[in-house]
């Protein structure tokens, strides 16, 4: 143990850099996933009978089925290697889109977005139909009924599930080590392979970074939840 603490200083900056990469990856992806989730969730709860809406619903359902029905690691491989191979004739390369980081953001956002869409759909459907009827009877159009009445109520119900998804997605960033992205797990593995006498300590240190990230998020979420509890 003493050996570990005497020498960890040499490696700690690599861990910290990877930690920053993981955080950046998580924040960007989760913002995009939230946007995807709201849009797809709204499409899936819409009662509109127009053709465009029906097509959009069909597409978003296929999207959710595919994401939920395949492992994230496979999705990452398809997005990074598969897309690159298929689009190579057009001159496409992930290098132009931020390399492994760009591919990681795409994979993570698409993956979390599908789950978020289901959370949003369930949250909207859980709002009492009487709320919608009251708003519509006042003359509010569908869009304003959603933004002013339904979504604020749905948000409170959705929040625990959203945070849960955030935590899952943060941990899923570790899968991006498979495409060589320099996030925590990848860097941890690299360091461990050169300092073989400290495998256990290094991996535990790596785990500690994730633990701190997820626990802080969960704590913040509890505070937000409390604040959103007014009017109950």
């Amino acid at each position, binding site marked *: 143990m003493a050996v570990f603490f005497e020498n960890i200083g040499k490696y700690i900056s690599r861990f910290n850099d990877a930690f920053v990469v993981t955080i950046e990856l998580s924040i960007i992806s989760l913002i995009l996933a939230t946007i995807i989730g709201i849009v797809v969730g709204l499409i899936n709860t819409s009662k509109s009978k127009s053709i465009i809406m029906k097509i959009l619903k069909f597409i978003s359902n296929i999207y959710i089925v595919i994401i939920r029905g395949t492992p994230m690691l496979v999705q990452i491989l398809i997005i990074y290697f598969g897309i690159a191979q298929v689009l190579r004739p057009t001159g496409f390369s992930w290098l132009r889109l931020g390399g492994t980081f760009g591919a990681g953001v795409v994979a993570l956002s698409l993956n979390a977005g599908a789950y978020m869409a289901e959370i949003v759909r369930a949250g909207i459907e859980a709002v*009492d139909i*009487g*709320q919608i*009827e*009251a*708003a*519509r*009877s*006042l*003359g*509010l*159009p569908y869009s*304003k009924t959603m933004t*002013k*009445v339904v979504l*604020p*109520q749905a948000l*409170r119900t959705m929040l625990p599930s959203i945070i849960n998804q955030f935590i899952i997605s943060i941990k899923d960033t570790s899968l991006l080590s498979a495409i060589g992205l320099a996030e925590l797990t990848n860097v941890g593995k690299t360091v461990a392979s050169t300092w073989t006498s400290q495998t256990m300590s290094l991996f535990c240190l790596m785990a500690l970074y994730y633990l701190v990230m997820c626990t802080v998020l969960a704590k913040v979420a509890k505070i937000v939840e409390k604040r959103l509890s*007014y*009017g*109950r």
Partner: protein
Amino acid sequence: MEDNVKVSVQHLNKKFGQLEVLKDISVEIKEGEVICLIGPSGSGKSTFLRCLNRLEEITGGKVIIDGHDLTDEKLDINKVRENIGMVFQHFNLFPRMTVKENIMLAPVQLKKMTKEEAEQKALALLDRVGLKDKAETYPSQLSGGQKQRVAIARSLAMNPDIMLFDEPTSALDPEMVGEVLAVMKDLASQGMTMVVVTHEMGFAREVGSKVIFMDGGYIVEQGDPHEVINHPKQQRTIDFLNKVL
């Protein structure tokens, strides 16, 4: 059509899938009239009321409000709804807004009033229903009767000229029924056109200009409240009134 006809329902028909819940309903409602709809549950009276602001899609026939044909596909239903207030059995107040915000929402969002005007209006309406001191309260802190009075104030915020009431006192404790009926009486006395689905025969008799008894999706009997309630002519009306009175 006469000038003072507010609502004209012509051969209205409503089906839920195969189930026909309204059958060939025709009614005319004049300005300032208070129409009370009575009848057993499942008779179609709430569905009829909800067809008047198209909360239920109309399957057949016509509903004309102030000259606007609700079955017209090009009609902007939101504009028509601005002039029709609706009060629900379960209040349906917005739980995450204060009482004042509940009332201000529609006028502000629909750009009928500035925030300041809407606030003045909200306070005046709360005063009218006797709840001025509750402006900053959340609905969860109110009693049932207070909630329903706020709901009435909210539906009045857009200055509607027709008010629909869907069993407004059915979810209330008995001692709170009176305060809600008092507000409704006050509205009626000021000339509001009202359609009220109710089990309160006393209210129907005292305030109603006309009582309509519905059963099985049909209008069975209608007319002067005293006539219909005290001297019903149809056997089904007699049976129903015997049970409730």
